């Protein structure tokens, strides 16, 4: 009997999932086809930064949301990824682009493990010091040693070429596809990791490290692995941010404010979610743009000068963050989930 019910169960489950899966495929196709139809401004100023910063958010979320280790130096590892990929593009031109990105990610991972070493001795907020140290150290390193920027006088780096299978990826659609493809692959990697044994180990360490150690989880090596994988993802995000979004970057493109941005993305999007990072990133990217637009729309620029508006925007941004932290403790991802749950039984109430 069971042999007859099982396939039917499976079939019904497939049926139930069908609309969602269709939506996912629709969304993916739309994302891929977008450069053909979308206009350049949207791609350059909104989509590419949102996706790359979302990817950086994934990197930090693996470390903070899943493994429970604080980092205030995400931008430092982004800069390591950016400078590593620049030097690889320059000094090892025979490497294909995907391998360059992976190698840059690995170099960032080594840096991450190094600055993650104190996590073996301490935990909690004090760990922030070590990663803050990374933040200032790398900013200093990349501005003091010109070798990293190929002795450029301005200390800036810009991609000598972005090429894959003979296709030049430098026009906007190419950069967009590079960003989307890389992010999709790393997102897949991250979501599988989070659901694998490693991810469960991380969450066990986050929730109670002593219990985790007791049930036989190798706490120390799992923590270092979290730093390595997190920095790997963050480093690749940094390379994409530098070359697919900024075009030309220097050490100060990855300053402390950028680290805080990544931290905001994780907290606003939702800790221990992956999709939420993109909501958080969209929030970070869109808020300044929307505020500027509102100012234009209300024609306030004629009443107040630019300095006033900059400060008003700064205040509003701070207020929005505080309100979000108060009202949405689990981030935008949980807000979205609640809205979805409500719509599933609409017009009734759950």
């Amino acid at each position: 009997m069971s042999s007859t019910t099982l396939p039917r169960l499976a079939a019904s489950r497939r049926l139930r999932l069908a609309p969602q899966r269709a939506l996912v495929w629709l969304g993916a196709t739309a994302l891929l086809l977008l450069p053909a139809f979308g206009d350049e401004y949207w791609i350059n100023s909104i989509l590419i930064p949102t996706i790359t910063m979302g990817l950086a958010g994934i990197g930090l979320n693996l470390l903070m949301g899943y493994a429970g280790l604080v980092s205030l130096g995400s931008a430092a590892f982004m800069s390591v990824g950016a400078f590593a990929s620049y030097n690889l593009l320059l000094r090892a031109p025979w490497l294909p682009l995907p391998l360059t990105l992976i190698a840059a990610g690995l170099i960032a991972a080594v840096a991450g493990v190094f600055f993650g070493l104190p996590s073996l001795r301490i935990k909690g907020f004090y760990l922030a010091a070590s990663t803050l140290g990374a933040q200032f150290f790398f900013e200093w390193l990349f501005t003091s040693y010109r070798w990293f920027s190929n002795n450029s006088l301005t200390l800036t780096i810009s991609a000598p070429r972005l090429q894959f299978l003979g296709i030049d990826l430098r026009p906007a659609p190419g950069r967009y596809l590079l960003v989307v493809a890389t992010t999709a692959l790393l997102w897949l990697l991250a979501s599988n990791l989070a659901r694998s044994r490693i991810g469960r180990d991380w969450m066990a360490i986050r929730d109670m490290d002593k219990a985790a150690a007791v049930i036989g989880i190798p706490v120390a090596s799992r923590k270092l692995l979290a730093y390595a994988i997190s920095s790997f993802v963050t480093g690749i995000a940094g390379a994409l941010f530098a070359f697919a979004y900024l075009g030309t970057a220097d050490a100060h493109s990855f300053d402390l404010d950028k680290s805080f941005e990544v931290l905001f993305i994780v907290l606003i999007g939702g800790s221990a979610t992956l999709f939420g990072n993109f909501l958080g990133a969209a929030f970070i990217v869109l808020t300044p743009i929307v505020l500027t637009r509102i100012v234009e729309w209300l024609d306030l620029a004629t009443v107040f000068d630019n300095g006033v508006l900059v400060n008003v925007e700064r205040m509003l941004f701070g207020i929005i963050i505080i309100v979000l932290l108060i009202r949405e403790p689990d981030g935008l991802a949980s807000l979205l989930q609640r809205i979805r749950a409500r719509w599933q039984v609409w017009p009734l109430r759950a």
Partner: protein
Amino acid sequence: MHYFLTILISGLLAGLMYAMVAIGFVLIYKASGVFNFAQGSLVLFAALAFVTLSEHGAPFWLAFALAAALMVLAAVLIERLVLRPLADRSPLTLFMATLGLSFVIEGLAQLLMGTDVHQLDLGIDDVPTSLLGLDLSQFDLFASGVAVAMVALLSVIFDRTRMGISLRGVADDPLAAQSIGIRLPVIWRIVWSVSGIVALVAGLLWGARQGVQFSLTMVVLKAMPVLIIGGFSSIAGAIAGGLLVGASESIADIYLGPLLAGGAVSNWFAYMLAVGFLLVRPSGLFGDRTIERV
């Protein structure tokens, strides 16, 4: 040797200035467990308020009193609008909230009082003076005198007054303190006010040194390693940490900087020192033993 001593002492004096900012952190961290990133913006806000009032002709004491009153008002608002709704949330959330708060305060400060660099003259010249055969800045000596006086005043308040004892009770065990009738919101308001006034004093000293401008908010970043070395919850530790950071920074800049590619080694050196400290003495020099080691 003489040169070394001069560097060492001027570093120590600069360290006391770091300690001034760090004390504001320690007060808030002790009483409410919040790592207040907005301390730097409070320094800016207080100094800007003072300078603006002075430029409008207020005498020193009036400007100081009004700026201090402003800081108390800010403390009450922060407690009501930010801390109370976020009670019982994770330290990281509270930290992020103070980060948001720093945006608000910085925006507000510059909105109301402009973005110009203001000169602040406290009447003490920043000229070298000779003391025991060493060339030391008169201003540094004055600043360290103020720091020492402030620490003495704070420790008298904490040890001798009823309010100070309640503060220590809250720092020790918030639940027990509440159960004997100490009101946490009141304590929070007081502590944020006091550290606001400490920020005002620090802002005046730093502002007289480098002008009252946006970069004042950056001293907050220097205070972080000071706190780690000294321990988050000890005023004496903040002083000791400040001295250590100041001295080692200026020595590293002179002796280590040229060995490396140059540039300001002091930007990250203090952090590396702090990390080294974390590995050896995780609770800092004087901190409580509550920090969790693995």
